[in-house]
């Protein structure tokens, strides 16, 4: 295989040419003849009763074509949650319907209660300002504790703000309690996993077209999974038959989870396009993105770790309140439960794990999966409490982790939180990390920092995550209402080039480069003749989209299966051409030959033959060369890693600077190491952002205080160090054909506890006995913590 093209080649990302030269085609770049604009009227209060909405004046304004309110959608379906979670007592979760537009009540600042369609966006905006809405402000439910204890409800009809009270694994509860009761030492930690605003570079945008002659709709939208969006709109929200609705997600400027979900704006523009017979476009502004994109994280957790006298872990017990915001977004119930609770054994042989999660409605934006989704929350809780335990016991934090690691000869390993880890070697990752991070040089570096009046801290972390989401049979048992397989079609054209239609959506992940490398490797041809087609329900067979580091592990596996079928058929054709039997045909470097002879035909000749089958034995071989495969994984994949960092802390101001960061990951096999490194860099940036900078703050009235970049701190290049990234320690996944595990989220999962552990270490080294600090670790918080001890 040409080294610069197949598996393992660090090929430059071909999609970057169009992104970097301004030739990308994002939803908002698409303009259609006769197009009109939608603008939404959004609530300025967090909780309010809609007494009346008078649109008379607005409707008469220049350019206004139509105005919609919640009334117009009272009869249509609602946007559902994709997972049904049952409470510990067996009762199903509370599932209030999320309407297209708020009806009766508005439930968070930014909740849309009306939409104006006008010739131009400016005219629509003017009319929005002229809508007279009598919305009576009610006290807001903001804080989760108050939400659970109070009698002010986000959804009156439910009569509680608790969506569910989930226990995992309920049968382990008594044993976990007993282990903690009898333990030599118990370390307890209360922490907040801070809420994050996803902040994709491209705000959401949706444009709908309707053709009354055929009753067909086309929706261009910023989506990570166009088929899922189509399914939700068709099956639950508007009832448009799937075969009458095409959903196209062209180039998408970042998602990080926030564009997995179906949002009401998509339904609104579809309904409006039908009503007006004209294309209707809505593009969010940045304020709308802050207020209405599904946020991430927002857990309040108490975790306990029980240990014996030697430092062996005996039990982890966790109680978490997870904010779901005002409405259930599509993955919101899975994120704090099955993507979090099942990871609470970490990389460890701990025998007892019990997790309790209460999901809580509040008058805030919906919260859902965000890069890592549940697994960062799990890792953060575990790795912070382990670090605290090491300090309490006077043990080295690396040695304590190593002592409890699952060992290489224990795979497959059944974790106490209910998963079966298939492969890994956590000690080898830790060895490599110690090497690339130059741990030996730390003491000298600390001295240098101290000479400058700065405190230097070292922080370490080991993580495991479950991705390659997900085996349908397993998630079905766990409450998922969808299957999580993926699909691919490999089409070999007559002239020998290929179009590969994939269900995974690429919005920064580099699929257009990496997927062809897989096919090129299998066929022995150059990747440059292979193109990926994605993001259009009319062109691709089916797909569940991109999230949960699933694209290569699940959709890539479907590509492998479809390519295997292509090879089988191509061999038949080659056998026919070479007058040999199928079984004797070998494929090597793009050439089919009869084993043990010099008779051969090239891949290109076979492709041409497939479409010019003048002499085909039609009862044996169909014309054409195109195959589809669906792939449903047998298990999750389990990437793992060892991370460490060093921070410098200015004790006078509290400012923390990340000086060094080493990330050593086991991603199994690596298809394109350059892309993998880039994914790790991006994840680390987001994780460091969460740890040091990003703070989503609602005041007690439910107003979002951090609603712009003036107050919400995004990580910038100079906030981040140069990273030492290593993925040489791969242990292939045992159950997918590529042996890949997934790398998209790891950086965001592994870095927050690494940073916070280092900050604690720095403060401790300055003689300040601070045992915990909540994220984001802002200068103000560090300074205050150091004042208060």
């Amino acid at each position, binding site marked *: 295989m040409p080294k610069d093209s197949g598996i393992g080649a660090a090929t430059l990302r071909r999609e970057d040419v169009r992104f970097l030269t301004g030739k990308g085609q994002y939803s908002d770049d698409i303009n259609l003849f006769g197009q009109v604009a939608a603008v939404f009227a959004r609530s300025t209060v967090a909780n309010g009763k809609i007494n009346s909405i008078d649109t008379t004046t607005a409707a008469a304004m220049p350019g206004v074509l139509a105005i919609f309110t919640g009334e117009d959608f009272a009869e249509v379906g609602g946007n559902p949650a994709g997972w049904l979670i049952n409470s510990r007592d067996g009762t199903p979760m509370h599932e209030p319907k999320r309407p297209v537009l708020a009806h009766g009540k508005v439930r968070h600042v930014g909740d849309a209660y009306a939409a104006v369609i006008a010739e131009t966006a400016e005219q629509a905006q003017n009319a929005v*300002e002229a809508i007279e809405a009598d919305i009576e402000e009610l006290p807001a439910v903001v804080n989760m504790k108050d939400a659970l204890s109070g009698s002010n409800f986000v959804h009156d009809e439910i009569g509680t703000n608790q969506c569910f009270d989930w226990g995992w694994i309920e049968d382990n509860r008594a044993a976990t309690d007993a282990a903690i009761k009898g333990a030599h030492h118990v370390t307890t930690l209360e922490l907040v996993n801070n809420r994050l605003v996803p902040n994709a570079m491209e705000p959401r945008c949706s444009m709908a077209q309707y053709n009354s002659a055929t009753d067909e709709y086309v929706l261009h939208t910023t989506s990570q999974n166009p088929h899922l969006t189509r399914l939700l709109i068709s099956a639950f929200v508007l009832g448009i038959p799937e075969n009458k609705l095409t959903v196209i997600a062209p180039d998408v400027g970042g998602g990080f989870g926030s564009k997995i979900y179906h949002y009401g704006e998509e339904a609104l523009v579809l309904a409006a396009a039908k009503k007006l017979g004209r294309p209707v476009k809505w593009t969010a502004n940045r304020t709308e993105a802050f207020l209405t994109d599904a946020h991430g994280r927002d857990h309040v957790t108490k975790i306990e770790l029980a240990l014996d006298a030697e430092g062996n872990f005996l039990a982890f017990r966790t109680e978490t309140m997870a904010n779901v915001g005002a409405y259930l977004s599509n993955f919101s119930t899975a994120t704090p439960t099955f993507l979090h609770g099942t990871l609470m054994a970490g990389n460890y042989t701990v025998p007892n794990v019990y997790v309790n999660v209460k999901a809580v409605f509040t008058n805030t934006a919906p919260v859902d999966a965000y890069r890592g989704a549940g697994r960062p929350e799990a890792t953060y809780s575990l790795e912070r409490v382990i670090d605290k335990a090491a300090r309490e016991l006077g043990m080295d934090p690396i040695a304590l982790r190593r002592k409890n690691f699952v060992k290489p000869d224990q795979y497959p390993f059944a974790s106490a939180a209910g998963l079966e880890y298939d492969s890994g070697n956590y000690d080898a990752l830790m060895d490599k990390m110690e090497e690339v991070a130059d741990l030996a040089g730390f003491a000298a570096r600390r001295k240098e920092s101290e000479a400058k009046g700065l405190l230097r801290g070292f922080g370490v972390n080991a993580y495991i995550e479950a991705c390659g989401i997900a085996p349908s049979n397993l998630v079905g048992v766990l409450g998922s209402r969808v299957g999580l397989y993926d699909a691919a079609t490999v089409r070999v054209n007559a002239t020998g080039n290929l179009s590969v239609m994939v269900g995974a959506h690429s919005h920064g992940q580099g699929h257009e480069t990496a997927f062809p490398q897989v096919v090129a490797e299998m066929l022995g041809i150059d990747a440059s003749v292979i193109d990926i087609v994605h993001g259009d329900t009319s062109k691709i067979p089916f797909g569940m989209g991109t999230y949960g580091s699933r694209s290569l592990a699940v959709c890539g596996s479907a590509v492998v299966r479809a390519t295997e079928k292509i090879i089988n058929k191509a061999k038949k054709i080659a056998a026919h051409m070479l007058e040999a039997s199928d079984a004797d045909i070998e494929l090597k470097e793009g050439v089919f030959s009869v084993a043990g002879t010099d008779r051969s035909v090239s891949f290109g000749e076979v492709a041409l033959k497939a479409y010019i089958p003048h002499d085909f034995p039609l009862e044996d071989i169909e014309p054409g060369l195109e195959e589809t495969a669906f792939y449903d994984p047998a298990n999750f994949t389990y990437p793992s890693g060892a991370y460490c960092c060093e921070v410098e802390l200015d004790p006078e*101001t*509290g400012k923390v600077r990340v000086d060094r960061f080493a990330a050593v990951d086991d991603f199994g096999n690596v298809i394109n190491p350059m892309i993998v490194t880039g994914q790790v860099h991006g994840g680390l940036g987001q994780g460091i952002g969460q740890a040091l*900078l990003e703070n989503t703050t609602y005041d007690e009235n439910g107003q979002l205080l*951090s609603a712009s970049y003036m107050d919400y701190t995004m990580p910038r290049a100079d906030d981040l160090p140069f990273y030492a990234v290593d993925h040489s320690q791969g242990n292939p996944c045992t159950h997918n054909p590529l042996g890949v595990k997934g790398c998209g989220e790891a950086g965001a999962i592994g870095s927050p506890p690494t940073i916070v552990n280092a900050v604690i270490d720095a403060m401790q080294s300055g003689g300040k006995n601070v045992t915990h600090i909540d994220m984001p670790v802002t200068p*103000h918080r560090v*300074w*205050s913590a150091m004042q208060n001890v």
Partner: protein
Amino acid sequence: MYAFDIERPETIAEAVAALGGEAQALGGGQTLIPTLKARLASPDKLVSLSSISEMQGIRLEGRDLWIGGATVHADVANDGTYAALSDLAAHIGDPAVRNRGTIGGSIANNDPAACYPAAALGSGATIVTNTREIAADDFFQGMFDTALNEEEIITAVKFPIPEVANYQKFVQPASRFALVGVFVAKYADGVRVAVTGASNEGVHRWSAAEDALSSNFSAGALDGLSVPSGNMIADLHGSPDYRAHLVKVMTGRAVAQAS
């Protein structure tokens, strides 16, 4: 944004004539344009000051550095005659902001977290308008409030050049304006210390530090001082106590690094 007209006068006199009514002066637009985009202001006319050559440029006038009111931050950053001032300008916003934003706009706006007001007050600068000259001590009158009358424009700012000076900005992490910024300037007749970012009263002088530093220009001279936190700003990024503490730390650093 609401619709508006725009005029581009070439002299101060034309600009003043064009103002009045619902018209508003436009400097670099780095504050005003975002305000318009958010529909928080609705002037019917903008009068751009950027084509007025008499409001452009940087030159020495005796012992003062004269800077035209429409001079952009990048030009001040590149000038270097008054090193501490150039350094301050070089750390305002990002290159786009520095290439558009003007000293007149910044000082007229008097954002409580802006940098230039600290330099003007800390240097005892004179604000020159189309009608008069105003001492910096009289000009800044609290958050977003100045001595400017309606339709009065800043045509220049004159900075007496000190023996040594320094500006220390501890950034608010998100906006990177000053969470606390302190400008220290040492003149033959004494030291001036101006603080921005910290107080509900906007940019102000820290007179106790000025007294201490005037007799002993070293960071150690601040040792016995403390900054009252009563009037300090409380927000997402810092408490009054934290800001008061930072005022002292940043003042000490400015003294130590003054050159």
